């Protein structure tokens, strides 16, 4: 995304605190009243520091975060909340405009149902609550201007394993009593957009994921490659922000243990048991298993919404095809 940073400069809290905005008498904020399995501050991720062993992080379904931000006129990669599975409840300390996109987690405003994708006003004292998944796994909540907190290495993305990012900068998930402060008092978008013009439906039973085939594909035998792209895969319950295991036909690879090397987002690695693991945003930065290639970023976003048991089909694409679709998605937000 356009605002990715390639420098190692650290934005410190003092730098942010040194520029208070005098036009904001009170901050637009939400207080967390209840939490579910996992809610995290996420933006596009942390870049320019993977050579130091610091992972990428960022919203798994970056497309839904982008739409939630678009609804408020934010930059597509502004920080929002990634709400996995549901359970979260937030009370407005001051009236503010919010937007949600992504999974349908049965969101309500003071008990009254809200559309899964749209913007709305939460009056002071009203409660926004998420129940449980009806379609997809992760909903994204956007606040005007994003979330006001001190970024680390250019990002607010929360990576619990690395104790980095989030509201406290220490990788903590959203907790009861936390205050989510909007980075600006009003949305950039004057005309409220209540619903999205277009949105790909959340995957339900089956998803086709595009995979950019990599050079190491030559290490796999022909029957394994045929199976990889022609047989169905199941999303395993061993799935988190680091990676998602697939179960299905056993893939055989001639290359055994390899020398560890840098791993791109969406890498489909095949350990000796022949069952692929798709490495996502919080993956370790280097690794040594052979790989079929890497899912396209759009496919990674979709995988982030696939519940265990979902049937996956892998579809090979060229880097050029993947790029064309990726740029088309970015263009929708301009």
């Amino acid at each position, binding site marked *: 995304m356009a605002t990715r940073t390639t420098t190692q400069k650290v934005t410190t809290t003092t730098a942010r605190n040194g520029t208070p905005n005098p036009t904001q008498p009170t901050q637009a904020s939400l207080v967390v009243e209840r939490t579910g399995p996992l809610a995290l501050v996420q933006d596009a991720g942390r870049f320019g520091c*993977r*050579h130091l062993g*610091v992972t990428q992080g960022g919203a798994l379904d970056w497309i839904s975060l982008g739409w939630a931000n678009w609804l408020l006129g934010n930059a597509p990669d502004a920080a929002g909340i990634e709400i996995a599975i549901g359970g979260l409840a937030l009370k407005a300390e001051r009236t503010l405009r919010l937007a949600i996109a992504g999974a349908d987690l049965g969101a309500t405003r003071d008990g009254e149902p809200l559309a899964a994708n749209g913007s709305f006003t939460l009056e002071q004292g009203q409660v926004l609550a998420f129940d449980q998944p009806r379609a997809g796994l992760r909903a994204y909540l956007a606040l005007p201007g994003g979330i006001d907190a001190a970024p680390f290495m250019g990002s607010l993305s929360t990576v619990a394993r690395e104790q980095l990012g989030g509201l406290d900068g220490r990788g903590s998930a959203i907790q009861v009593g936390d205050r989510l402060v909007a980075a600006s008092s009003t949305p950039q978008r004057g005309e409220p957009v209540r619903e999205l013009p277009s949105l790909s439906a959340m995957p339900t039973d089956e998803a086709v994921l595009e995979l950019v085939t990599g050079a190491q594909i030559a290490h796999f035998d022909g029957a394994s490659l045929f199976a990889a792209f022609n047989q169905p895969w199941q999303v395993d319950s061993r799935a988190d922000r680091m990676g998602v295991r697939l179960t299905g036909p056993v893939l055989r690879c001639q290359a055994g243990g390899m020398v560890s090397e840098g791993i*791109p987002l*969406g890498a489909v690695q095949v350990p000796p048991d022949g069952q692929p693991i798709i490495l996502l945003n919080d993956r370790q930065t280097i690794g040594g298993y052979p790989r079929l290639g*890497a899912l396209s970023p759009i496919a990674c976003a979709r995988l982030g919404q696939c519940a265990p048991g979902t049937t996956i089909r892998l579809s090979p694409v060229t880097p*050029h095809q*993947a790029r064309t679709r990726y740029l088309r998605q970015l263009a929708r937000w301009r």
Partner: protein
Amino acid sequence: MSQSPSPALSPSFRMETVGMDALIVRLFDAIDEAHMPWILAADNALREGLGGALIDLVPSYTTLLVHYDIEQLSHIEARRRVQQALHGLQPASTEAGREHRIPVWYDDSVGPELPRIAERLGVDTDEIVRRHTGRDYCAFALGFSPGYAFMGMIEEALATPRLKTPRQKVAAGSVGIAERQTAIYSMRSPGGWNILGRTAVKLFDRDRDEISLFRPGDRVRFEPISREAFIEQGGDTTPLEER
């Protein structure tokens, strides 16, 4: 330490597609300290050659992962830029990486595998310490956790396979070995390396200008210190849990 390579002989490199916006530059096939001057030279050349179109560059042992900005460069343009950047590559000076001296308290309580390895080799623990501290190590790659450097090579006789059952918690600062590599745990985490001792040095510190103490290509030498010196440096003497 390693067979003397011919510095004038440039390695042939291969470019491999690994994703929509990433490619791997492969310079070598096996781990060797003599490769690092080439990896460091390629790292510099690629940072310079790709400039603002570079998002991340991850050097590791034999390769560099190039993650480029897909909005600026197509796959074909990225390959061309990499090709140009690496044209006529010369190895970096063997002095290119920075040097670090890391004080370590080697002790059974914080390094449970120290006596075991000594027993296996039929020597006392001081001899293991003498051998582990007896040479400079090269940081081949950072990974596993922020600031964690994979270093080598340790003396062949010290080479020890990873623990069959990894520990649930390895204390930050723990110094370990696995096969012919050595490393320091940068934060408390699960881990399967054989632990020999502990350092009070912080490998990753967000409040320091140099957030990560190590960078790929740095050279590291361990120095044995007493328990008293370790405590004085702020070290935590809590024994390492067995499992």
